[in-house]
C-alpha cells in the first residue's frame, strides 16, 4: 500500500467524501455542475447516484450517517460489529451494536474512488491474507487489518457453509486482530424441518454470543420496534418487486443496488423505510405514465449474480446509456411473504410478532433467506437454489438477456456457472458471462467488459 493511503483512516475518508458529496447535492444546478469539476475522482459516480433524484440524495445521506456512526461508535460508548453483507443487521439494533459491513464499504469505495483500490486489495495480502480470496471482503478488510479504521469489537458472519471465501475473510480478521467471532452456519438444505431447527438453534447461539459480548440482555422494546418496521419494509419491498415485472420496467437500474445495500445495512431502521418510500413514489409514477426507469428500455437484463461491476461506476453508466433495464438482480432477493417470486410458502419467511420468541425465530428465518445464503448453499440445481430461482424469476420478469458478473474469488459460482449457462441457454435465455471481477478492475478491465458485452448483445441479437 502506498504511503499516501496510510495518512487517513479508510472509513473516515469515505465518510468525508459522502459529506462533501452532500454539500454538492444541495447546491443549485449550476453550482453543482461547477463543483463537480473540482471533484474529478468521484464526479462520475456521484453524478450517477444524484441523478436518480431524491433516492440518490437519501442514499448518500444515509451512507454518510452509517459511516459516521461507525467512526464515532466508540466515542458514544457503542460496540462495533464487523458483519458480512448477507446478514440481517436487525438483531444488532436490539443490542445497540453498530454494524460495519465490509462489502458495503468495498462497493462504495470502488464505485466512487479512482485511486487506491488496488492498494487496499493488496493490503490484506501484505498481512498474510490470501491473494485469491473474494474481493468483496478483501478490499475493505485490508485497511481494517492494517489498523486504518475503527477496530471492531466483534465479528459476525452468516456464510459458514455457504461461502468459504467469505467466511474465511471474517475468520481471518478475527484471528489476526484477536477479536471474538461468531458465525451462523447453514446446512445444505432450506425448508425441511431439520434445517429449520438448525436455523433457529444457530441464531439463538448467536444471540447468546451478543449477550455475552455486550454484557446485557437484548432490548425487547427495540426488538419489537425493529420487527414492526420490518413488516412495513417488507410490504414496500414486495411492491417494488411487483413493479419490476412491468414492461417497460419503471425502476431506474440503480434501485436494485440501492435497495439491497439498504436491506443489508439498514434493515429494521427508519432510514430504509424512507428510502423505500422515495423509490416507490418514483417507480409508481413511472409505471402510471408507462415510462421506463432507464429512459428508453431497449434490453431487459436479469443479473443472476452481482449486478454492479463497480470500478468507477462506468459499467453502470454504460448500461443506462444503452437502455439496459435491471429487471431482476440476484442480490436483491429476500423472500418475505407475499413476494412475487416465492414459489412455495415455506420458501419465504413471515414476521411473526406474537411473542419475543417468535420474533427471534422470524429473524432467524429472515437471515436464512438472505441472498446467496439462501440459494447457493445447496446444489445449484436443487429446488429453490440458484438455477430454480433464476429460471422461475426469469419466467416472471421476462428478461432478454441474463448476465453473470462475479468475483474471481467466488469458488462457489465459478464451480458451476458453466453448468448454469448450459441450462439457461437451453431454456432459451442468452446468457453472458464476464471473466472480470466486480471490485478489481485489474482482472478484466471495465472497458473490456463493455466491449465483450456489447459484442454479445449485438451478435446474439439482443440489442440491434
Amino acid at each position: 500500500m502506498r504511503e499516501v493511503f496510510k495518512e487517513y483512516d479508510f472509513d473516515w475518508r469515505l465518510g468525508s467524501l459522502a459529506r462533501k458529496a452532500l454539500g454538492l447535492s444541495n447546491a443549485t444546478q449550476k453550482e453543482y455542475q461547477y463543483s463537480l469539476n473540482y471533484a474529478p475522482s468521484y464526479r462520475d459516480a456521484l453524478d450517477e447516484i444524484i441523478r436518480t433524484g431524491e433516492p440518490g440524495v437519501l442514499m448518500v445521506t444515509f451512507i454518510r450517517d452509517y459511516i459516521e456512526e461507525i467512526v464515532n461508535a466508540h466515542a458514544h460508548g457503542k460496540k462495533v460489529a464487523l458483519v458480512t453483507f448477507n446478514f440481517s443487521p436487525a438483531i444488532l439494533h436490539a443490542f445497540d451494536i453498530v454494524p460495519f459491513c465490509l462489502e458495503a464499504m468495498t462497493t462504495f469505495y470502488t464505485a466512487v474512488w479512482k485511486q487506491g483500490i488496488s492498494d487496499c486489495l493488496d493490503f490484506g495480502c501484505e498481512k498474510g491474507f490470501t491473494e485469491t480470496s473474494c474481493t468483496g471482503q478483501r478490499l475493505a478488510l485490508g485497511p481494517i487489518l492494517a489498523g486504518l479504521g475503527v477496530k471492531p469489537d466483534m465479528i459476525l458472519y452468516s456464510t459458514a457453509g455457504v461461502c468459504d471465501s467469505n467466511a474465511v475473510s471474517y475468520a481471518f480478521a478475527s484471528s489476526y486482530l484477536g477479536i471474538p467471532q461468531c458465525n451462523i452456519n447453514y446446512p445444505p438444505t432450506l425448508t425441511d424441518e431439520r434445517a429449520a431447527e438448525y436455523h433457529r438453534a444457530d441464531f439463538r447461539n448467536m444471540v447468546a454470543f451478543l449477550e455475552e459480548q455486550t454484557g446485557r440482555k437484548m432490548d425487547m422494546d427495540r426488538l419489537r420496534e425493529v420487527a414492526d418496521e420490518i413488516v412495513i419494509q417488507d410490504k414496500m419491498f414486495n411492491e417494488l418487486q411487483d413493479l419490476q415485472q412491468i414492461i417497460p420496467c419503471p425502476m431506474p437500474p440503480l434501485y436494485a443496488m440501492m435497495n439491497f445495500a439498504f436491506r443489508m445495512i439498514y434493515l429494521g431502521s427508519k432510514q430504509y423505510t424512507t428510502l423505500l418510500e422515495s423509490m416507490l413514489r418514483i417507480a409508481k409514477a413511472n409505471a402510471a405514465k408507462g415510462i421506463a426507469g432507464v429512459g428508453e428500455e431497449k434490453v431487459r437484463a436479469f443479473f443472476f449474480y452481482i449486478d454492479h461491476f463497480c470500478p468507477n461506476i462506468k459499467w453502470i453508466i454504460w448500461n443506462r446509456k444503452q437502455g439496459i433495464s435491471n429487471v431482476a438482480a440476484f442480490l436483491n432477493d429476500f423472500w418475505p411473504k407475499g413476494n412475487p417470486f416465492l414459489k412455495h410458502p415455506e420458501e419465504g419467511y413471515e414476521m411473526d410478532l406474537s411473542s419475543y420468541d417468535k420474533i427471534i425465530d422470524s429473524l432467524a428465518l429472515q437471515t436464512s433467506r438472505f441472498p446467496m445464503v439462501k440459494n447457493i448453499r445447496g446444489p445449484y440445481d436443487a429446488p429453490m437454489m440458484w438455477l430454480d430461482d433464476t429460471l422461475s424469476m426469469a419466467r416472471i420478469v421476462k428478461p432478454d438477456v441474463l448476465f453473470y458478473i462475479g468475483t474471481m474469488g467466488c469458488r462457489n459460482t465459478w464451480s458451476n456457472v458453466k453448468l448454469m449457462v448450459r441450462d439457461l441457454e437451453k431454456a432459451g435465455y442468452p446468457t453472458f458471462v464476464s471473466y472480470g471481477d466486480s471490485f478489481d478492475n485489474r482482472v478484466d478491465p471495465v472497458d473490456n467488459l463493455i466491449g465483450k458485452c456489447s459484442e454479445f448483445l449485438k451478435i446474439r441479437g439482443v440489442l440491434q
Partner: protein
Amino acid sequence: MIVAGCDIGSRTAKAVIMEDSNILAACVMRDKPDPEESAREVMAQALAQAGMRMDQVERCVGTGYGRKQVTFAQAVESEIVCHGRGAQWLEPSIRMVIDIGGQDAKAIKLDEKGKVIRYAYNDKCAAGTGRFLEVMAKPLGVRLEDLGSVSQKSTTPVKVSNQCVIFAETEIVSLINAGKPVPDIVCGLHRAMAHRVAALAKGIVVEGEVGMTGGVAKNEGMFNALEEALGVKIHKIGWDPQMVGAIGAALIAREMVPSA
C-alpha cells in the same frame, strides 16, 4: 461489385478483395505497432495484388481487434461474425467454427445460414492462443511453420500443465534442460492447448460439422491434436484459414445495404 474485408488481428493484418463470388486478392502481413498503419499497408498490398485502386472498391468492412482503426472501412463487424460468415461461405456444411488467432481462441456455433447462434471465448489465464505457440517456439528453436511437422515426429508426448503463457515458457525451458526431445515437447504443447480449446467447444456442445480457422489452423500438429481432443473429424477449409475472417468481412460488405 467489388468489395473488401480488412481484418486487423492481434498478430497479423489481413485484407481480401472480392468481386462477386471471386476472391481477387488476399494478403497477410505481420502487425505494425500502429494498427492504422497495418490496415493501410495490408490493404495497399491487396490492391496491388488485384491491380486496383482504393476508389474502385465499393465498400469495405473492418474486423478484428484493431477494427476501429481501419479508417477506410465503411462499417465494422466483430470477428466472431466474420469468421462464422466466412467459414460458412467457404464450406456450407460447417456448423461450428473453432478460430484460434494470436490473442484468443473462440468456438462459434452457426445455423445453416451462417448466423452465429452461440459462441465462447477462452477462459482467463488460458494458454489456448497462437501467441502461446509463438512464445514457445522460440526457446524450442523451432520455426512457427515447422511446429506441425516437428510435432508429428513425437513418440511420447510430454505433459505441459501451465496455463499461463509466461509460466508455460519456464516449464518448456526446464523440459528442454531435462533433455526431453523437442518433438515430444512440441506435441505435448499442442495437446495441452488442444485440450483447452476442446473444453471450450464442448462447453457450448459440439454438434455438426466442425471447421477450424485462424492462423493456428495452419499448424497441422494443432489441427490433429484438436481432432483428437474433440473426438471428431475437422473439416479442412479449402482456403487459407487465416484469411477467413477477412473473407467474412468482405462478404458482409457485399451484403450491406448501402447507407444513403
